[in-house]
């Protein structure tokens, strides 16, 4: 009869591996994730997708008074393949919807989406129009919703700060 208290050799090894894993995770994994997240959240580059009225407030937020660049949000006027944030500002129509999905697919991982303005959250003021999508979260996954019509530039910056919080606490290297 085997003694119940006698743990076989392989079981000891597993427990040892588990303990070493925990130590390594705390010693290397957590700082690594912290550094990776720190790098990501302070350099969110949004895709320049100018939509409707809300784009005016994004322009004001990037302007000299509100200056979103001090948070790292710099509109990269190059290619969207360098960007990791897409701020959907304003109304998305049925004509633009396939292009929006294409743009989202073309962005490399990790990527985040901010839905800015009432039109991109639920269709907003244009809920009964024949050409307007009632919210973009049916097409692409949204991380932060910034309500308003249009949201003030400070609201948009608060939305970006919320997204930065979310990234700071993310536990996977994929960023989501």
């Amino acid at each position, binding site marked *: 009869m085997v003694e119940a208290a006698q743990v076989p050799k392989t079981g000891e090894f597993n427990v040892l591996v588990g303990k070493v894993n925990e130590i390594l995770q705390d010693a290397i994994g957590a700082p690594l994730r912290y550094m990776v997240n720190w790098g990501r959240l302070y350099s969110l580059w949004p895709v320049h997708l100018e*939509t409707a009225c809300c784009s005016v407030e994004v322009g004001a937020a990037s*302007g*000299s008074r509100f200056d979103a660049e001090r948070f790292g949000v710099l509109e990269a006027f190059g290619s969207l393949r360098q960007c990791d944030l897409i701020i959907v500002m304003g109304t998305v129509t049925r004509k*633009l919807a396939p292009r929006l999905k294409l743009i989202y697919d073309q962005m490399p991982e990790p990527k985040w989406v901010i839905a800015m303005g009432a039109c991109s959250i639920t269709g907003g003021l244009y809920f009964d129009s024949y*050409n307007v999508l009632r919210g973009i979260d049916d097409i692409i996954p949204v991380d932060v919703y910034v309500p308003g019509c249009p949201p003030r530039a400070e609201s948009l910056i608060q939305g970006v700060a919320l997204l930065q919080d979310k990234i700071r606490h993310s536990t996977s290297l994929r960023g989501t």
Partner: protein
Amino acid sequence: MSAAFEYSPEADRIMSVSLGPQHPGAGHFRIRLWLDGDLVVRADPDPGYVHRGEEKMSEYRNYIQNVPHLERPVILDSSGILFAYSLAVDQLMGNKIPPRAEYLRVIMAELNRIISHEYYLGILGLFVGQTTMITWMMGDRDLFIDLGARIGGARVTFAYIIPGGVRNDMPEGLQVQAFETLDWFDKRMDEYEKMFFRNPLWEERSKGVGVLSREDAIRLGATGTVLRASGVAHDIRKAEPYSAYPEFDFSVASLKEGDTWSRAYVALEEMRESVKILRQAFKNIPPGPVRLKLGPQPRVPAGEVYARTEAAHGEESYFIVSDGTPKPYRLKIGTGSFKNMIVIPHLLKGIHVADIPPVYWGLNYWPVHADK
């Protein structure tokens, strides 16, 4: 077999490129370009990416409920386009607007003109590479948005000029802040001129580029700064005066050359004239009520009306057919940017690819405005 594949060097040289809906140089608008090397052979605008169906939506809302969504085609100049709508509805109803409300309408319209032109020139500067323009202009624009917000309540969506007058009176002591801003802005505009318009790089890039002749401008139906930069001094505020404009002393800015430099400079001159009008308006505004009591569902008698005003982006006109019910039967919006859209393929033909940003952004074309 021989007819299956024909190679001809001429046909192969033309490359078709899409200046697509996601492009820093195009806004929410797509231009299909056919290029022969560096020259544009043909350009075809593809609007409609922000077509929100405002004309159909207006038939389901009454005349007061139509105000919020009708100010959003060009949110930069929301009061300018609402002015046309309010004029049309007031003419249909036979409203007599109190004088203080007329002055407040003009004040808001001219503030919005400055706000819109600042954005226009800033974006133009940004896309030709002069980023000082955008940082200066976005900052200065915020001062005028502050004035507008003190009157209208919100930052860009004022919804202030409504049928029957204006929504509310301006606060006490606004004149002080207004005169401070206007005095400072006068000197600032001279700085703009030295920094940008007399800058040899900008002159090199824009003088003689994208020339629109006077005959073409009239034939194609261009409006706004595009028309006035081509030698036609046509401004609805002077040609068919409305509201309180006859009581102000200002002139119409216009230049003869019709190139990109002229179009941008006409905008600067218009800002100077707006400052003049604002000074007079703030000084001479009469006391009195600011709004007629119309009720939430005003009854509008049956009839038709066609009213037009000069907004920042061009002539804004409304054609309203009413059948006596509180909702319009047909509301047709004629936006300044839509009228100028026909100029885009005309001007882009035959120019170099590097000239597309100055020409296109110099037209003061807002895609959302043309799409309605």
